[in-house]
Structures are given as structure tokens and as C-alpha cells.
């Protein structure tokens, strides 16, 4: 009876009891923890304005404007040379982050488009847009129109890998 009553107290919407919780709870700040030490009470904070991560990531100097886009389109070039391009990994990343809307072949017919959840995704060989490596990078970094920024899902090197893969898809489409 005691057992039954104890078991009935356990609910799936509540975490179970812990034995010696002080061994379970972290002392330091954990990701996503709540803490009064930070503004808004959230441990996850954005890096300070102008901070540069270690490891040779230079800040992106093109602005998030139409002019910045045009400038990037005309002048921004991929810093990775052909030996650094890992098209297998680029495809993996592309299929995860881009393919869901742009389609795995870049025609703009991803699963979300086919299910009419997101519309108006152009094909990469669209003549009116005439994308270049610079413009692709700019769009991944800042987003454009209905597309959001992917700067926090892909790091700099990964973004350039994806840019290279997109250009490859574009070339395949234009064949």
C-alpha cells in the first residue's frame, strides 16, 4: 500500500526525487541557466559589441543593407582555396540547413516549399538574382527578405563551404 501510494505521487510532469541533490546541481554557471548575475536573468548572453572570437575569425565588414549586398555581390570572394573545400561536409551542412527550403538540388523545391509552408523560394539559377559567391555569403550571414540569418548555425568556415556547394548546385542547374 505504501509502495502504491508513493508510486502514485510520481507524476510525469514533475521531475523525480533526487538523492543528495547537491551532487547533481552544478556549482558553476551552466548553459541556459538562470542567474541574477546577468542582465535579464539569463546566463546565455550575446558577446559584447565588437568582440572577435579567437581563431582567425575576422569581423564581416559588409553592411546589412542593399548597398552592402551589392558590394558583397561584386567584390567579396571565398577565402577557401580548392584544397580546403570539403564538398562532402558541405553537402551535409547544406542538406541540414538549406535543403529544407531550397531543395537538395537547389531548385527551390525543398520539403517545406512542396508542403506549401514556405513559398517563393527561388531557384539558384534565377536570372533576375544572378547570385555570386559574395552575395550568397552575404545572404547566409544576414538573411534576405523572408530568409533569416544563418550566422549562428554555421561558423565562418562552414558558411564558405556551403557557399561553394551552392555555386556547384547553381552550375549544375545551368547546365
Amino acid at each position, binding site marked *: 500500500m505504501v*509502495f502504491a501510494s*508513493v*508510486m502514485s505521487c510520481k507524476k*510525469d*510532469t*514533475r*521531475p*523525480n*526525487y*533526487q*538523492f543528495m541533490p547537491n*551532487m*547533481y*546541481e*552544478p*556549482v558553476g554557471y551552466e*548553459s*541556459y541557466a*538562470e542567474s541574477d548575475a546577468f542582465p*535579464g*536573468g*539569463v546566463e*546565455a548572453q550575446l558577446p559584447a559589441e565588437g568582440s572577435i572570437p579567437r581563431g582567425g575569425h575576422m569581423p564581416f565588414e559588409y553592411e546589412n543593407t*542593399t548597398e552592402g549586398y551589392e558590394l558583397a555581390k561584386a567584390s567579396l570572394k571565398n577565402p577557401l582555396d580548392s584544397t580546403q573545400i570539403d564538398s562532402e561536409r558541405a553537402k551535409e551542412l547544406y*542538406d*541540414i*540547413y538549406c535543403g*529544407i527550403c531550397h531543395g537538395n538540388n537547389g531548385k*527551390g523545391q525543398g*520539403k*517545406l516549399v512542396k*508542403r*506549401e*509552408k*514556405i*513559398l*517563393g*523560394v*527561388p531557384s539558384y539559377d534565377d*536570372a*533576375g*538574382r544572378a547570385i555570386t559567391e559574395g552575395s550568397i555569403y552575404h545572404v547566409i550571414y544576414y*538573411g534576405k*527578405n*523572408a*530568409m*533569416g*540569418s*544563418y550566422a*549562428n*548555425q*554555421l*561558423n565562418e568556415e562552414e558558411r564558405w563551404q556551403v557557399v561553394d556547394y551552392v555555386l556547384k548546385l547553381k552550375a549544375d542547374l545551368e547546365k
Partner: protein
Amino acid sequence: MYYFCVRFYKRFFSIIFKKKSYQSLEDNSTNTMTQVIYRKLTSKFLNLGLVFLLTISTSLTAQEGDPAKGKTLFNTNCAACHQLDRDMTGPMLRNVEARLADEQGLDREWLNNWIRNSAGVIKSGDAYANKVFKEWNNTAMTAFPQLSDQDITDILAYTAEPKKEIIIEDDKPEQTDDTSGGASNKLILGALAVLFALLALALILVRRTLNSFAEAKGIDVAKDKTIPIWKAFVQNQFLVLVTTIFFLLASAYFVYGYLSQIGVDQGYEPVQPIHYSHRIHAGDNGIDCKYCHSSARVSKQSGIPSMNICMNCHKSIYEVAPETQAEGLAEYGVDYNAEIQKLYDAVGWDGQKYSGEAKPIKWVRIHNLPDFAYFNHSQHVSVAGVECQTCHGPVEEMEVMYQHSSLTMGWCINCHRETEVNVKDNAYYTKIHEELSKKYGVEKLTAAQMGGLECGKCHY
């Protein structure tokens, strides 16, 4: 456009009619004039032919657009920035042609120019074009030189379609059916119980009456002379001992069971601040786990997606499909559209732009290892290539997320013992893989053989 055609035809007929009357008049008067008339007539006929041709050609281009074709064109070309009933990156387009004509006096020609080259129209100094351009934060509309007149007509026909009202069927009767089914089951059980109780009562009553009859008739009913069973039990010491041992063992078993599940949250299914359905996102729409939990590839944590990742899609998906909404209400009692609205409130999105007033969503953490155990996602996801579902279960089928695995140490070790390491094309430890395989004399290595059971690997 049909109106114009009709007008042209009317004119055409009236001219012919006039001609005939002229002819008859001239015929009556002089002969010399007839040639002139005929010459005029031929030129008029030529003109007429031209007019006729023009009418036909204009009527060709001005054919009623095909809304179905227009929808496809709209979805591929326009829908990135425009919706029919809602401002997005660009203004809403329902009845755009009629609205432009009524409010601004702008005709199809202007629209064609704008669609094919909006920047050119703005540069030409067109007042309305410049006004719209400024109104929409100087966002230039992509040029669509590839669209033909017919394409644009189709698209405009699609935008001119009246708004469809979708009626969501009421699923309430189904629900009542369900509950009545459940109730009837309980009713049957209850009735059975009552029946048995009545039977038992009847038996007791029958026995009593029979006894009283026997007493009345002076028959001595043979009473049980044996001692009651519990007394016999107490008197038998061996039985008492065995039973006690059994009882103690049984309770020890249950107590052990209870104690060992302390701190294990398998099946933990908390109510989240926003009802997020993994079933819809990962299952129906097939979004990769790593799309949102991108840091699982590269860091210890499989991150909770920040709200801008939600907004990647929900900037344009502001409501679910009507069928999904009906399904949510009927099966899960969830108003999905209200849940999307909760996201908008948290992120400070008013349907057009961010208000800048974001408030964090307090998601409830489900999978939580104790602080003394170290676990790294990237090591398992990127290096080992373990599927997310191996530990997290069929997330793509979960309407409400719950903890699938126990996350106990035994569970970890079991997997480390059984799982063969994918040595092929794994450049991380090519050399050590070879040496270890030689040492253990095996073809395939398990994580345990690579030191996956050493205490210090996870506890330090």
C-alpha cells in the same frame, strides 16, 4: 477587357453601316464621286482591318488570366516577399490591380513596368513608385524580366480571386462518442460488480433462512468443529517463518526497485511554456534535428534554439494549416495558432518587424545529467555519428517531448559495450584503432575496448 472588345466591334459595325449609307447616297447623286468613295472605302477597310487586328490581338493578351497558373507563378516568384492578405517584406497583393487603378489611377502598363524593372520605374521619377519605395524602407523589388504579359495576367488573376473562407469542421461529436464509449465500459463493469454483490447477498440470505428453518424444525445443523484457519496458521511456526521471509524478501524487492529509480527521470514530460510539437516539425515537415539544435555538432550542449531560428520559418508561417489546427484541437487540445502567437509575443514580432522587446522563454529542461557525469554531444554526434534517436527515442513522433532513455550509468555503459565503433573513414583515431584491434584480436572495436568504461572518462 471584354468591354473594350465590344466597343471596338460596335464601332466596326457602325462604320460599315455608315459606309453603306454613304454608298447609297453617292450612288443616288453622281457617278464620278463613286470612285473616290471606293478609294476611301478601301483605305477605311484597311484601317478597319488594322483596328480589327488590334482588337483581336489586344483581346488575346487581355484574355482572362488563369488563376491556377497564376498561383504557381505567384508561389515561385512573388511569395518570397508578398502574401495575399498580409504585409510581409513587400505589401499584400490581394486585388492589387483593382486597388492601384482605383486609388492611384495606375494601369496595367505601369504594373508591367514595375514588375519587370521596379528600379527603372523609380529612377524615371514616377511619384507613386518613389513613394512606395520609401514606404517600404527603400527595399528594392527583385526584377522579373522573364515574366511575359500572359504570366503577369495570370498572377493578377490569382491575386484578384476572392478570399477563401475555410470552415473548420466541428469535431466535438467525435469526442462525445469517445467519452460515451469509455463511460459504457465503466457502466458494464459497475453493473457486473453490483450483480455479483447481489448474488453473494442472496446466497447468504438463503443460507440464513435455511438455517432458521432447520432450527425451527429442531434439526441440529452440524457446526464446524475445526479451528479457524488463521489460528491454525499461527500455531504452525514453520509456515509463519516461511511467510515472514517471503514477505520481507518481497518488500525488499519493491524497496530496492523504488530506491534505484530515484533520480531517474525516464518518461519525464513537463509542460513547456510554448507547446512545441516535435511531431509536426521533425516528423511531418522533416526538419533535421541539427537545423535547430545546431550546436550538437560542435559543442558539449545540444543547444536550445534561440528564437531567431524559430523566426527563420515563422516569419512567414504565421498560422498552421487548417487541417493541422483542427487535428491539434481535436486530438491534443492545443490551439497551434495561439502557440505561434506566444512565440511572437516572446520575440517581440508584430507581423511586420521586431519591436525590440524580447522576453526569454523559460523552457523546462528535460534531459539533465547530474553534475558529476560529463557528457559531450559533439563527441557522439560528429565523431561517433550516433543518430539522435538512439538516445532520445522517436522524437519525430512526439507531440510532447519526454525523456525516452533512463540516462543511468548502466544505460551508458551498456551502449559503450555493445556499439561497434565506426572505424571506416574515421580519421580521428586511425592508428589507435589498428593497434587496439591487434591487441584485442578483433575485427571491430567497441567503445568499451577503446577505454569507454574508464571512470575518469566521464567522472572527474
